[in-house]
């Protein structure tokens, strides 16, 4: 089977997020008040050949931890992508 997977990479809690805070600071000048805790991250989409959804997610998590994220500063969350 072929499973579509998405990986969300965000900075770990406690790690400064310069992109997120710059976006947040600029929002009031555009008239968007009351928007808080903006965090910037990365989205990866790909497909995995696997015999089950769990196996696909396991492969995805392995490659996310090895390459797509830097575990020193980032968390990677894998889920099955919806078409």
């Amino acid at each position: 089977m072929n499973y579509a997977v998405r990986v969300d990479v965000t900075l770990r809690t406690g790690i400064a997020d310069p992109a997120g805070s710059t976006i947040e600071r600029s929002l009031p000048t555009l008239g968007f008040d009351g928007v808080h805790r903006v965090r910037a991250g990365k989205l990866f989409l790909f497909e995995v050949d696997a015999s089950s959804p769990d196996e696909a997610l396991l492969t995805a998590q392995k490659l996310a931890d090895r390459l797509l994220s830097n575990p020193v500063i980032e968390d990677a969350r894998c889920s099955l992508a919806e078409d």
Partner: protein
Amino acid sequence: MTSVAVVVFPGSNCEYDAARALESLGASATLVFHSAQDLSAFDGVVLPGGFAHGDYLRPGALARFSPVMSALERFAAGGGPVLGICNGFQVLTEAGLLPGALQKNRGLTFLCQPETLVVASTRSVLTRAANVGDELVIPINHFSGNYTCDDATHRELVENDQVVLRYRDNPNGSRDDIAGISNRAGNVVGLMPHPERAMSSLLGSADGLVLLRGFLGLEPAFSGR
């Protein structure tokens, strides 16, 4: 030390500056492409600045998987002097040869300017010819130079004297003003500033000399300091 490898990744752009700087101090510098699998013929290895593999994904993330990196790990494990400058520092952290990570500068600004650095340790191959407290003016040129690590790692860095250089006026948000660190043994060093661009007072600063002379194992030069 006489023979230094300067590793060239696709996208490196400071390899000639680094080689020229080392040769001006009497070393022989060889540009070694990232596909090389053996560094044992060299007395030292420099990872120069630039944008290895386009800096895609994260700076240093893809360079870490270049064939030369296993040779570099062996070289470093054997105690060989390794210096990562700017992008080279980012590669060393991604490869796990140095702790922590470099993330985007505070304020999301690309910085290209001279900075005053304070020597924090002389236990590393880069700073062994300097004195603790020396102030060196060395240019920086980076977007992701904001040194980050968790509390435990920071404590270890300080306790083991691995913080090598600090910024006097922190330009990028780096934790504890850190500009450069070493591994525990002191033979692997990474720093964001570019000592190879501070080799002559005619060009703004000659303060890189004491660092590269240290890296080459030379006695400190008389520099009027």
